[in-house]
């Protein structure tokens, strides 16, 4: 459904430096699959998501959605693409026009993209809003009259009403409370059943959320995918030291102290100055001098759909986990 091959997105800076936001990313999503993209701030997740919808231009590489070559698409092709692929952002408030009722906001896309009008249009919008848990009394309200969770439901309804094949969700619950997050996650999980053909790229830095929602996960660090695989496998047997560090940093709702924690020191390096060799070696607890700081690791296949970009990926099991 979505196929990304060798994607680079580089931003030249006024001072002559280059931000290598995305650096050789390849990722495939099968129809109906939900894949999580996780990593620290600045690792390039949003840039991947936006490039897929051509909201940001790639520097090189190939992106296909179905049979559309996104980077070569004509204006007409782009118009179809904008309907077939939808994106939902973290902040539902700034994604909605404050002067439009939510019914109108959802109708807008249909008016622009279809010939649906009148009662048929009205009914289609009402139905989708209701299916998102927004009953009729809300339909003629303005965004400021809704809570954050309700606004995010409107954004999801607005995307789904166009029957997209691909949904890119960029941190859709990070601005929400845990209880409202649970509602939105429920809505998204239901889509797995009600729209089995819908493919979702779910961007988040919350690993617990990814575990709940996704079939597969790709972990990004400084513009590269460093580990990829089925969610259960990656969470239960992470092979990249960065994945292990991320997992041990997740706050777990339990008073039992976790003995197995790996702490990364320092911050993520600047993407204008990516460390040589393995980009993670400056923070890696098991980095090997002479190897990791000079030779860039290539992805090591660990099974079907499973790989990690570390020199020691196939025999690091348990290392540093105590």
């Amino acid at each position: 459904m979505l196929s990304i091959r060798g994607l680079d997105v580089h931003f030249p800076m006024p001072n002559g430096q280059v931000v290598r936001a995305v650096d050789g990313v390849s990722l495939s999503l099968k129809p109906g699959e939900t894949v999580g993209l996780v990593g620290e701030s600045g690792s390039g997740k949003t840039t991947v998501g936006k490039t897929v919808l051509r909201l940001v231009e790639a520097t090189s590489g190939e992106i296909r959605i179905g049979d559309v070559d996104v980077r070569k698409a004509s204006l007409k092709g782009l118009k179809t693409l904008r309907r077939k692929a939808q994106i939902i952002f973290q902040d539902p408030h700034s994604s909605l026009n404050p002067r439009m009722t939510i019914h109108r906001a959802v109708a807008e896309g249909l008016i622009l993209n279809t010939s649906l009008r009148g009662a048929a249009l009205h009914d289609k919008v009402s139905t989708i809003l209701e299916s998102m848990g927004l009953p009729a009394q809300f339909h003629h309200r303005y965004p400021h009259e809704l809570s954050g969770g309700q606004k995010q439901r409107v954004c999801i309804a607005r995307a789904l009403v166009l029957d997209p094949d691909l949904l890119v969700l960029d941190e859709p619950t990070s601005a929400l409370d845990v209880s409202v997050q649970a509602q939105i996650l429920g809505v998204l999980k239901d889509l797995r059943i009600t729209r089995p053909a819908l493919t979702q790229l779910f961007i988040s830095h919350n690993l617990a959320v990814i575990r709940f929602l996704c079939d597969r996960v790709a972990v990004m660090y400084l513009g590269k995918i460093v580990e990829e695989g089925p969610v259960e496998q990656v969470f239960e047997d992470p092979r990249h030291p960065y994945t292990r560090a991320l997992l041990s940093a997740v706050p777990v709702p339990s008073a039992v102290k976790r003995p197995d924690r790996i702490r990364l020191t320092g911050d993520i390096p600047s993407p204008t100055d990516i460390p040589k060799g393995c980009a993670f070696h400056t923070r890696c607890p098991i980095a090997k001098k002479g190897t990791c700081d000079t030779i860039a690791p290539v992805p090591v296949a660990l099974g079907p759909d499973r790989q990690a970009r570390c020199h020691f990926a196939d025999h690091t099991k348990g290392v540093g986990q105590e």
Partner: protein
Amino acid sequence: MMDSTPILDIRDFSLVFDTFDGAYHAIDKVDLSLAAGEAVALVGETGCGKSVLTRAAFGLVPSPPARITSGSVRLDGRELLGLSDRELRGVRGKDVAMIFQDPMTYLNPVFRIGTQLTDAIRAQSGGKVKRAEARDIALGMLEKVHLPNPERQFKAYPHELSGGMRQRILIAMALAAKPKLLIADEPTTALDVTIQAQILDLMAELVEDMGLTMIMISHDLGVVAQVCSRVAVMYAGKIVEDAPIGQIFDAPAHPYTKGLLDALPHPFKRVERLASIPGTLPDLLNPPKGCRFAQRCASAHAACDAPVGLRRVAPQHTVACTLFEDTPMKDPVHEH
């Protein structure tokens, strides 16, 4: 712990906001007490009153519109309600320190970190500490909060530092005056998981090694779990449950606490469904007479329409819910 005066003792504290539509009952008869060296989490949904409570107690919520309608706030035995603005400023500069979600708001972008830190330390001492001495204290604090290369960061401007480094600096600044109490209002919400873990480790270390007394505010029970030993759960301006952290996870009593726990996805467990709490906070312009959670509670029954006070279900565990009977026990910290 039990026989000493609490560092902070909030009793029967109520506050309304006078709005065009009438009085908004933001905080209602709250009791919250912290012994020296205790780290207590204040947990609840957005808008339930966590920030208003912890700011109003130290004179940080302007009046009008806010109006404190009942209660007392004692800091190490001294009553704070009724103090002048000047006296309260003194308390905040010295005895109570606060850190917030976005450290950038509290750092001046045009001054170097070192200047801001030394100025703050000198101000906290009322000018008694000399510049050179303040500099040593500041560098010492930066080491305590494990800021890498403190000498170098001293010369940096705030925008040159990452969010995690800025939060460390704010913690250093907050603790330099050796406050009796630290209020940390969602200190890690804006940070990445890995950096959040570093800051939480630091807070836990400060509590353990420096005997820091702290209220940590969060809407996520997972975040406070590694730092705090006790949790006070707040809902619609009331404390609905107060218990040691182990009890909150192993034997949560209040239906709202259970709801918060069930809503959390777990990174290491396969969960098919998350229970979410239906509905939203009640309208506090016309707060329910009985339990404020009743509209959203699956166990609500007739008795919940009358005011519900805190009941003790275990020695250190109180809950405001009619599903529980009061078991009288002697516990001076909570005694009225």
